[in-house]
């Protein structure tokens, strides 16, 4: 049987990949990908600890987290569509009007 530490290790690796993508990428859609990867790593952690503790609450929390992440993706992609319409570009370094 695969143990808890293995699942947590996979989750750590996925979070590292997501943080790398958030730092390095300039493409707005790829940044959304990175956010998705981080959210899924967190869900994997929740489910693994729920299974280990024998408690149902982790699964319910993961269900809520998945639904909220779906809402967040919908709004984020709509924002990307507007920014593309305004700038004809999805590189986040080109969005200069948002700078303070």
């Amino acid at each position, binding site marked *: 049987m695969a143990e808890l530490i293995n699942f947590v290790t996979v989750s750590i690796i996925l979070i*590292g990949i997501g943080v*790398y993508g958030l730092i390095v990428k300039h*493409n707005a859609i790829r940044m959304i990908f990175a956010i*998705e990867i981080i959210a899924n790593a967190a869900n994997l952690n929740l489910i693994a600890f729920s299974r280990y503790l024998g408690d149902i609450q982790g699964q319910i929390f993961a269900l809520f987290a998945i*639904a909220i992440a779906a809402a967040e*993706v919908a*709004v984020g992609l*709509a924002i990307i569509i507007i920014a593309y319409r305004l700038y004809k570009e999805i590189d986040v370094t080109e969005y200069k009007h948002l700078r303070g």
Partner: protein
Amino acid sequence: MVDVVFLGLSVLTVGSALFALESREIIYGAISLAISLLGIAGFFILLDSPFVAMFQITVYVGAVAVLVIFIVMLVRTQSLFTTNEDRGRRIAGLIFSLLMMIGIGVVLFSSEFSRVEFSPLMENIVDKIGNEMLTYYSIPFILLGLTLAGSIIGALSLARREDIDSQSKISSGSQYENTYLDKQTKEQV
């Protein structure tokens, strides 16, 4: 047996997550992200929570991945193919993420987690989830529905084109524009 499945799933998930970020064309990256999310659903099945796995497949692979692919097809710009990221930033990102992984990993492996065993299998998971959702979590459940509805209405109104009305009013010479205007006025009446 479980170890082989676990290894395969982890290679699939991590590899396709990397490919989603590093692929040359972003459409392949979107498909690869969908495969990575499927791998996460496989982990959920390995962890004896099939309901959450099915929810994950429905929401992420069914809805989110299709939405992302639609957006990638709508946004056809040259910057989808050219990657202009400076070298220093890439090295900094690599070092930072590696440091984070090693830091958390060292803390976890030196703790008691590496000797922990799974507790016995839960029964009637779907029953319990349904009971909790309708009793203790009923108010967060309603709030979640409102949040989803609000975010979808917000996304629709954000992505709506406001310049279509003014365009069709200015250039109403062609046949198409006239019929469009007629339809609009009929709808308004």
